[in-house]
């Protein structure tokens, strides 16, 4: 492979990863940055979206496409998909509709996971809340590995190729579609933060007691925040599963909890734009480190697989010491004045 092809492949893959992480980080930022809920359990919603999408997608595909077969969609997964994928390849509109349906399912799964986690959680104080949610994050990997009908147990399961219609450009189409979804969610989140609803979330974050005195139902707002944040995380899980084409019940805490936290920390918590910047920086760095680290084998005095953890860990410490508010500060005023000095338009 010549160098330009390598750069293109690297970037296209990077864009897909960036899109998935952006959606997760927006979901995390709404909870932690905007509402002040330290959700260390976003893995619960991400894995929920990914595993439920993986578990249901092949089953739904054979029903919707009307395929008659005695094969089991999970245990005979590969054979079933050999019947499904040619149809998706031939019918782009059907494939895209399925893609959207799976995202909705992933989002709904994430939101439900969020609600389940939040039921005990919103009543707890910040530190206990964080511990509880952290524990929740691990539950689905245990279930996924032990209960084979979900994602086929430890070996995992393949998903219908909803991007098959793009043929030889599937790789590029995948990244493009993911980016479009991510940008749409970015715009939506930006809108939500600026509405009176978002303003109340920020008020609760800044001072819960005063918000209560001003008649706000704190539990309801926190639940809404967790639900919408988890909805986005679920969609991200779904995107990841569909893009990868296969899922095993091993979504790791480092990748899907620590990295998103690092991203919003670097970008600036509470700021939607900061989330975008932080995601871009960390996704790129992490991928560059992974790409180049094997050049350092034998030079660094430890196993090279630890290099990502080491460098990103150092980065976290430096950010916390030198710029704890992140790169992009929350912009004010969010609510623009519309009254006063109104000049009436001529005509």
């Amino acid at each position, binding site marked *: 492979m010549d160098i330009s092809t390598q750069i293109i492949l690297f970037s296209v893959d990077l864009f897909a990863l960036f899109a998935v992480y952006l959606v997760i980080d927006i979901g995390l930022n709404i909870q932690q940055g905007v509402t002040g809920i330290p959700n260390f359990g976003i893995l619960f919603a991400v894995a929920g979206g990914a595993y439920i999408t993986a578990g249901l997608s092949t089953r739904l595909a054979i029903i919707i496409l009307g395929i008659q077969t005695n094969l089991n969609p999970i245990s005979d997964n590969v054979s079933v998909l050999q019947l499904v994928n040619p149809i998706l390849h031939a019918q782009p509109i059907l494939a895209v509709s399925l893609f959207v349906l799976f995202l909705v399912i992933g989002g709904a799964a994430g939101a439900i996971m969020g609600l389940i986690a939040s039921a005990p959680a919103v009543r707890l104080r910040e530190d206990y809340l964080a511990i509880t949610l952290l524990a929740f994050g691990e539950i689905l990997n245990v279930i996924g590995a032990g209960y084979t009908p979900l994602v086929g147990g430890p070996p995992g399961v393949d998903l219908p190729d909803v991007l098959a219609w793009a043929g030889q450009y599937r790789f590029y189409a995948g990244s493009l579609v993911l980016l479009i979804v991510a940008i749409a969610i970015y715009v939506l989140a930006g809108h939500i933060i600026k509405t009176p609803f978002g303003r109340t979330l920020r008020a609760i974050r800044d001072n819960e007691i005063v918000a209560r005195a001003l*008649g706000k139902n704190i539990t309801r707002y926190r639940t809404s925040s967790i639900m919408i944040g988890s909805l986005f995380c679920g969609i991200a899980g779904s995107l990841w599963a569909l893009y990868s084409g296969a899922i095993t019940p091993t979504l790791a805490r480092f990748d899907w909890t620590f990295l998103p936290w690092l991203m919003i920390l670097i970008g600036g918590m509470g700021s939607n734009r900061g989330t975008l910047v932080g995601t871009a920086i960390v996704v790129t760095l992490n991928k560059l480190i992974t790409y180049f680290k094997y050049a350092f084998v034998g030079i660094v005095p430890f196993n090279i697989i630890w290099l990502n953890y080491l460098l990103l860990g150092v980065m976290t410490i430096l950010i916390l010491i030198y710029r704890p508010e992140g790169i992009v500060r929350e912009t*004010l005023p969010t*609510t623009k*004045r519309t009254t006063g000095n109104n000049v009436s338009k001529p005509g």
Partner: protein
Amino acid sequence: MGNLQVKGVKKAFGNLRALDGTTLNVDEKTVTILIGPNGSGKTTLLNVITGFLKPDEGKVLFDQSDITGRSPQEIYEIGIARTFQIPAMFSKLTTLENLLVAAKNHPGESLTKSLVKRLWAKYEKDTIEKASKILDLLGMSEQLDKPASLLSGGQMKLVEIGRALMSDANLYLLDEPVSGVNPTLAHEIFGRILNLREQYGITFLIIEHRLDIALKYVDYVNAMVSGKLIAAGHPKDVINDPRVIEAYLGA
């Protein structure tokens, strides 16, 4: 509207009896001040009335209906607004936004409705107009777009009052509204309180230590010591009451 009756309220924290059978009456459309030495239970009483603390015994009546033990949210809906002794800002929100949050029943505060701007744009515009007027009244127009964390202590006090005024409540409970505010402004604030009472028939119960300023403006004074009301009546009578002098004025 705005009549408040506290009947034999008791509240203990372990062995400490913060409220020991407190009874207090605030007539509607009056400005009543509550005085007492530090630790006499004034703020605890405010917390009990506004639902932040549940009383061990006793009753709180607002316009003859029992509101004992209701949640802070319900109390606010009923029409009682409060401020805090130590100014507590939504620090990353602007001064204006601090007031906007206090708006009652804002349709844009519901997650689903917030997605469609058309459903709340009008209400938001009216709320901004109202908040701007209140800030104008408090002499805070210059600080409208400033983050609340950058305000001075006195200005924060004013935002506290402004936020409460957004509620259109019938009864306001103000916890030391002019402590840390310069004398000129303090007089102005009490002047405005009287105006609001005249214009809208609002009732005020105010905790305040700065009697030199407050006494001129208030209708009634209630004095508390060790969780009990020891005197209530017109300012002159209460201030000259020997028990009050002994406990509070320390003459």
